[in-house]
């Protein structure tokens, strides 16, 4: 596990502010110790079907992808710049018009590719609304510069 400097912690927390799409969705990062939980506060513009009402499936998958990438950047440093190769999202329950949370864990980290698993939930962690399994390409490791 990489040692995290204060600078890196700040970088991860700022991540969502620095990625326009994350800011557009309103995603926030909650970093406690070394555990990242992403938070997606409810907003009307995240709704898909207004008759249920339910969060748009694309929003939930975007939250899961961003969470997976944040977890990878936390594990490997921000220069890893993970890019999705493939993602599989299973929708388990409809997302209600309330806050959504997500966490990811790195199932397997190779030199170039990582396999990450993530899940999203609302009022109960034990009742996830969706899960993601995906592969992410990692930027080729560069010689670490002595700081």
């Amino acid at each position, binding site marked *: 596990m990489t040692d995290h400097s204060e600078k890196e912690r700040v970088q991860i927390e700022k991540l969502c502010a620095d990625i326009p799409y994350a800011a557009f969705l309103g995603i926030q990062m909650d970093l406690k110790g070394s555990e990242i939980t992403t938070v997606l506060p409810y907003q*009307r513009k995240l709704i898909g*079907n*207004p008759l249920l009402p339910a969060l*748009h499936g694309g929003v939930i998958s975007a939250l899961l992808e961003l969470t997976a990438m944040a977890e990878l950047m936390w594990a490997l440093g921000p220069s890893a710049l993970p890019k999705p*190769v493939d993602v599989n999202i299973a929708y388990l329950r409809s997302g209600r018009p309330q806050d959504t949370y997500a966490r990811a864990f790195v199932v397997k980290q190779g030199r170039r590719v990582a396999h990450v698993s993530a899940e999203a939930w609302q009022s109960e962690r034990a009742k996830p609304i969706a899960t993601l399994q995906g592969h992410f390409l990692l930027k080729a490791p560069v010689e670490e510069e002595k700081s």
Partner: protein
Amino acid sequence: MNPSSSDPPQREKPAGRPVFLQLGDQVGFMPLLEELPHARALGLELVFADWYEAELRQPYRKELVGYPETGVIHGGVVTTLLDNVSGIAATCSLHEFRLLATLDLRIDYMKPAEPEKALNGYAHCYKVTENVAFVRGIAYQGDRSNPVATSSASFMLNERIDLDIDQQVEIMKSLREQGVFGD
């Protein structure tokens, strides 16, 4: 070998419009697009919708960027585009009104979308069973044979909506007047 996701469906199309599009025509909106707040927030546009297939267009917007240094939009936007157009293709394959729920969605990313350019998402529903609709899709910019991403989605077909089209038109119009579809 799997048929290419960009191949149009081989099945002959029934006469008339799919029931969901008929409903949309009479109420005056494109179902699964114009009444979804998130689709409106993204600026998703309809290219076309017909039996078994549909295409949407996601204009390039700076707030959808995932990689600020290059201006490339985030993968989540591609996923949302393909999820939405796949849902439309699935509803356009039904001969009666039924509620749909996405079960599973797989996206394979071939290459980053070019910045400053719109992204098109095309999907076709190649199989409908008693309970499930199966859809394949591609996201592309200009060239369907060189896609940005491909997708495979399955939708659960839930209970039949036990109302005829005229009843549904009245209900939809009333809901719209009440602002249920608004921002």
